[in-house]
C-alpha cells in the first residue's frame, strides 16, 4: 500500500475534489512554506533582539548610542503603526487577526520596548534605582500586550518575567541545573505563585475572560508549585513538611485531574507524588537495619506496577 489518498478515494471516504487537492500536495505540486517561514522569522527575532540587547551594553557612551536609540524608537513606532492598523478591539474571547505575522510583530515590538527601556536605564544611570522594578515593568508590559492583543506567547513570557521579578529563574527545561530557587523564602514564594497562577487559570475560564489562557496559566502554575515543593524537600532543613505538602497536594491533584481528564497535569502530579512518596519511604527505611532489601525491589516493583496501571487504564485518556 503506497498511497493513502488513493485508497481513501477508492473506498469512497473522500470526494474526487478532495482527492485531487491532496494528490497535488503529495506530489509536491504545491508546497506550503508555513513552518519554514515562521521558523526563519522566529530565529530572526531571537537573534536580532538578542544582538540589540547586547549591543546596548557595549555601546553605552560611544558615538553609536543616540543612533541606536533612534533606531529602536523608529522600529517600535513602525511596529505599533502596523499593530494598530490590523488589531481588533479588545474582547474577552479568542481574537483572530488577518495579518499572518501579527503574533511575531507583537513579540518583536514588546522585546524592543524592553530593549529601549533598558537602554534608557543604563544611559541615565538609574539602574540601581529601578533594578528591582524593571522586571516587574517588563512583566506588566508582557501581560498588557498579551491581554490587549490576545497572545499566549506573550502571556507565557510575562509569567516567566514575573517569576524572575520574584527572585527565581524559571526554566523547567533546565531545572536540574537550576539553582534559582535557593533560599527558603523563595520556595514559599514559588509555591504561592504556583497556586495563584493555577487559580488565575481557573478564573479565566470561569469568568470567561480569555478562557484560552487557562492552559498556559495552569501549566506554569503546576510546574512552579511542584518545583517549589520538591526543591524545598532537597535544599532546606524542613524536608518532611515540604514532602507532606507535595505528597498531599499531588495526590489530591492526581484524583482531580483524573476526573477532569487533564492528562498532562495528571502526569505532573503523579511524578511529584512519586518523588515525594519515594523520599518518605527512603527516610523511613533508612532508620531500620534490614531495610535495604526493600530498596532493591522498590524501583522495579513501583515502576512496573505504575506501567501496568497506565496501560490498563489507557482508554480513560483516549481523547488525548
Amino acid at each position: 500500500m503506497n498511497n493513502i489518498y488513493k485508497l481513501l478515494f477508492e473506498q469512497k471516504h473522500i470526494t474526487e475534489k478532495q482527492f485531487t487537492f491532496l494528490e497535488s500536495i503529495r506530489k509536491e505540486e504545491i508546497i506550503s512554506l508555513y513552518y519554514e517561514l515562521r521558523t526563519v522569522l522566529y530565529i530572526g527575532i531571537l537573534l536580532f533582539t538578542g544582538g540589540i540587547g547586547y549591543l546596548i551594553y557595549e555601546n553605552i557612551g560611544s558615538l553609536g548610542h543616540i543612533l541606536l536609540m533612534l533606531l529602536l524608537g523608529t522600529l517600535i513606532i513602525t511596529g505599533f503603526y502596523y499593530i494598530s492598523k490590523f488589531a481588533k478591539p479588545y474582547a474577552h474571547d479568542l481574537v483572530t487577526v488577518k495579518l499572518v505575522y501579527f503574533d511575531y510583530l507583537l513579540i518583536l515590538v514588546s522585546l524592543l520596548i524592553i530593549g529601549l527601556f533598558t537602554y534608557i536605564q543604563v544611559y541615565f544611570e538609574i539602574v540601581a534605582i529601578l533594578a528591582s522594578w524593571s522586571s516587574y515593568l517588563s512583566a506588566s508590559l508582557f501581560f498588557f500586550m498579551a491581554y490587549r492583543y490576545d497572545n499566549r506567547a506573550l502571556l507565557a513570557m510575562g509569567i516567566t518575567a514575573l517569576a524572575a521579578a520574584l527572585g527565581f529563574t524559571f526554566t523547567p527545561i533546565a531545572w536540574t541545573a537550576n539553582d534559582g530557587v535557593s533560599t527558603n523564602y523563595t520556595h514559599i514564594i514559588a509555591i504561592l505563585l504556583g497556586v495563584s497562577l493555577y487559580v488565575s487559570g481557573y478564573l479565566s475560564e470561569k469568568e470567561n475572560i480569555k478562557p484560552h489562557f487557562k492552559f498556559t496559566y495552569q501549566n506554569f502554575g503546576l510546574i512552579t508549585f511542584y518545583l517549589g515543593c520538591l526543591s524545598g524537600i532537597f535544599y532546606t532543613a524542613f524536608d518532611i513538611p515540604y514532602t507532606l505538602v507535595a505528597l498531599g497536594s499531588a495526590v489530591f491533584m492526581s484524583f482531580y485531574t483524573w476526573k477532569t481528564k487533564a492528562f498532562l497535569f495528571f502526569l505532573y502530579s503523579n511524578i511529584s507524588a512519586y518523588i515525594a512518596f519515594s523520599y518518605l519511604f527512603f527516610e523511613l527505611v533508612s532508620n531500620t537495619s534490614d531495610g535495604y532489601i526493600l530498596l532493591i525491589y522498590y524501583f522495579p516493583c513501583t515502576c512496573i506496577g505504575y506501567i501496568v496501571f497506565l496501560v490498563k487504564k489507557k482508554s480513560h485518556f483516549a481523547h488525548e
Partner: protein
Amino acid sequence: MNKSFIAYDIIALEKKKILSTSQSLYKSKLISEKQWDGIREAFNTNLYSPSVFMRVLLFILSYIGFSTAAVPFGFIFMDLDNIGFQILFTIVGILLLFLTEKVLIQNKHHYLSGVTEAGLFSGFSFIALGILFNEPENILVYPIVLFILSALASIRYLNRVTLLLSIAFLGWIIFQTLVDIGGYAKAVIPFAFMLYFGLLFLGTLKLEKTFTNIIFNDFYSILKAVSLTCFYVAGNYFVVRELSIDLMGINLTEDEDIPFAYLFYAFTLLIPLGYIYWGIKKKRILFLRVGLMTTALSVMTFIYYFSTITPVVVVTISGALLIISALILLNYLKKPRHGFTRENMILNETHSKDLTAFIASQTLGGNSTPTEDESYFGGGGFGGGGANSNW
C-alpha cells in the same frame, strides 16, 4: 525486505498510518467530521500507541524498571568469571527481546508505546555488552558488532533511533578502517565520508522505489535528511580543518592551510546553494530545508575565518536580515506563486499554540532580568525544530 522479517503486523501499521494521516486532515478541516468518523470506523486497529508525553513517561519508567530488575540477578551470579558474564548478559538480552516481542508486540499489540522501546534498547544493550565484555583488541570489532545489532533492530522493530545509530556506526567502521591503513588513506577521509553519505542518499532513493509502503515513508525521510546534511558536513571547511587538527594530529600555523583547502571552500559555498537551487527548481521541500540550514552553517564558517566585525554585530545583522526576508516572502506568497504558498495546508501533528507559547517563553528571554549582563540571551536552549519523535 522480506515482510515477515518485520516483527509488527504490517496491515495494522498501515491502518494506523492511515488513521493518523486522516486525523491531521480532519484537524486541518480538509475532510468533514462525517468523513473522519467513517474512516475511523473503517481503519480501526487494536494497536496501543499512546501520545508523546505518555510514551516518554512509559519509556523512562520501563527503562528504570528493566535495568533495576537485573540487580537482584546480579547478586545471585556474583562469582562468575568473564565468560560466564558474557553468557549471562547475552541470555538476559535475548530473553528481554523475546519477552518484548511475544508479550508486548504480539499479545498486547504495543507499537511505539515507550515500553517496547525500553525493552528493545535494554535487550540489545545486554547482548552488545555480552559480546563485547571481554574487550576485544581490535577496535574495529566494536563498531561492526554495534552496527549489526542496530541495523537488525531498525529493520525488525522499525526503530528510528537505532536507524540513526546504525548510520553512525557504519561511519565509524569507515573511519577506523582508513585510520588503520594510514598514510594517504587518512587524507581521503573527508572524501570517503562524502562518498558514503552520497551513496546513502542514492541508496535511499532506490529503496524508496523498491519498497513502496506508507509505513516506511518516515524512515526514508530520516535517511534522506541525514545523508544530505552529513554529505555537506563532511565537506565543510571548518569541520575538515578542525578535525584534521584534532584527530589526525596535523599541525597547522595561522598561515598554513589543510590539503585541498580550496576544494573545501568550494564545497562549503556551493553545496548549500546547490541544495536550495535544486529545492526551488524541482520543488523539493526537503532540499529547501536542508539548504537553509546548511546555508546558515556556511555563513558561520566563512564569518569565523574571514570576518573582522564582532560576533554580536553579525548576530544582530543576520537577525534583521532573516526578519526582513521572511516578511518579504510572506507578503510575496500572499497568493500561491510557482507552486509555493505561505498558507498551512496540512497541520503538523504537534501543531499547538500552547506549545509555541511555552517554547517562546523559554527561548526569547522573558525569564531574565534586564540588570544582568547578557540579559537578552535568555534561556538559550533551542527546543523547537525536533519534529521526529523517536520513541
